[in-house]
């Protein structure tokens, strides 16, 4: 395994009784990447991530995270990864600063708690009890706890579920800042917009399988037919074509100038996504 690979998964399978949650997943995530696992509820995102985090055993397949098997890796491996779990839990009766300073004691080279509190934008709330925080504020603390040990790899499981749009955008800025610092980020989300905004590459999961893998733009537009529409004397016409430029040039020649009512559209990531997960239903 090269040093440029942060996560390598092949043939991963996990069953819960009769339910196959993960059904043969292959992934390779490079260092420094922001990688999103996108999919509807029950697609196997959280199970996959929890296996990568060493929380769950797997039934089959090979998994390497930062060069080690999460099922048997020890404390020094834990010190190199950061985890933000799915549910923001109500913590103990501690203040934001106390909680962050406490978690800092677990790591060999922790961040300075006060600098970290500033980084996640919680300076005003540093003295507040965890129980008194809003959902978005609690999530910022979750992220702070995830990165207090300066992880090389950060897992974020549905980090912005339940956020209002403004809080979500602020949160994205924080994630981008971490990515710019070179932290590899593996993110699960069921918000398409979030995957598109943050991820360099993404995998679409449905029914425990990877149904698409690539850059958001590739999954959305390139390679899929574009739609060319224009007005004719007999009404509006729409043609799907993989060579829209050629088609528009031909139409222009025929029209001898402007093509009336011309539109060229590519399917959006959302169109592609709905089509992909729809196949599985």
């Amino acid at each position, binding site marked *: 395994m090269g040093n440029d690979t942060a996560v390598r998964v092949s043939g991963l399978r996990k069953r819960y009784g009769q339910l196959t949650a993960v059904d043969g997943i292959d992934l390779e995530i490079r260092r420094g990447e922001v990688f999103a696992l996108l999919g509807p509820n029950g697609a196997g995102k959280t199970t996959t991530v929890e296996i990568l985090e060493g929380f769950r055993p797997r039934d089959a397949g090979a998994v390497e995270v930062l060069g080690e098997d999460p099922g048997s890796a020890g404390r020094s491996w834990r010190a190199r990864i950061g*985890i933000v779990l799915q549910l923001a839990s109500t913590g103990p009766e501690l203040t934001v600063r106390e909680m962050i300073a406490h978690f800092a004691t677990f790591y060999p080279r922790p961040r300075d708690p006060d600098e970290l509190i500033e980084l996640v934008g919680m300076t005003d709330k540093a003295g507040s009890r965890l129980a008194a925080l809003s959902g978005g504020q609690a999530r910022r603390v979750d992220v702070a706890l995830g990165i207090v040990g300066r992880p090389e*790899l950060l897992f974020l499981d549905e980090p912005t579920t339940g956020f209002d749009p403004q809080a979500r955008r602020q949160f994205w800025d924080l994630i981008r800042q971490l990515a710019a610092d070179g932290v590899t980020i593996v993110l699960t989300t069921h918000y398409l917009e979030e995957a598109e905004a943050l991820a360099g590459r993404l995998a679409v999961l449905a029914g425990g399988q990877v149904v698409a893998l690539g850059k958001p733009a590739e999954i959305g537009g390139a390679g899929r037919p574009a739609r060319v529409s224009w007005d004719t004397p007999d009404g509006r016409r729409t043609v799907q074509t993989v060579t829209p430029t050629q088609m528009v040039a031909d139409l222009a020649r025929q029209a001898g100038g402007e093509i009336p009512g011309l539109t060229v559209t590519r399917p959006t990531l959302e169109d592609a996504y709905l089509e992909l997960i729809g196949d599985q239903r």
Partner: protein
Amino acid sequence: MTTRPRRDMTGRKPLRGRPAAASEAALPSVLTTGLARGRVELTTFFRERETVVFIFALPAVLLVMLGSIFGGQAVRVPGVTVGQLFVAGMIAGGIMSTSFQYLGIGITTERDQGMLKRLYGTPMPHTAYFIGKIVQVFVCMIAEIALLMIVGVAFYHLHLPASAGHWWTLAWVCVLGCAACSLLGIAVSSLPRSARSASPMITLPFLVLEFISGVFIPFTSVPPWLQRVAAVFPLKWMAQGLRSAFLPARAAVLEPAHSWEHGRTALVLAAWVAAGLVVCVRTFRWQSRKR
């Protein structure tokens, strides 16, 4: 799997022109993290109002109530009052409250709310979590015993242990009993499915045990078959051991065996410690059963 070069520990590739860390810093020791856990455990214990009231203060309140109502009654040993029996019994109950009841409910809650999972995801050594619990339970137990002894001495004619030997009895009964009850609490914390069901599920058997073990009513008033049930569990032996530390030697005639049975007390408590340890090691879970 290849070995990673050291420079990667920084999480930043030197190729990017960023400074690499000087060296791999060592992981904090089990003791350091364990004491950090202990500090946090103690802080949260005394900040949670419910805990302070229902775990810490309740035994003292009950002692005052029981003592005020029945404390003046004489028993058939001259110089011994029911109040003194209550103080000794309630100290045993208080130890079980701060260990068994608090750990049982507290760990269930931590598991249900994801705190245990969160800790498991960090490089904190698992032993450190338990060191933290030991520190917290031990400190709270000492405070609880002190509180009940002050109440006992002030209002119910409790005499402090008469000799070094009696103090030693007090010490070993408390430590052994607390260890047994703590392990039992950790073990039962796996049973409730949620934090909400933890309190009734753990408090009810504890209350029953207090009734039949000579905490709320003198052990001599407990029907013999219930005495035999109580003798299976640690609380009865803790209460008996504490009576031996606080009461004069002649009060031993009040015990079912007409003696303090120190050897048997130590044996039963040690057996609970051993069994509890095995169960805890085999069943402790860091995650909630909810998928």
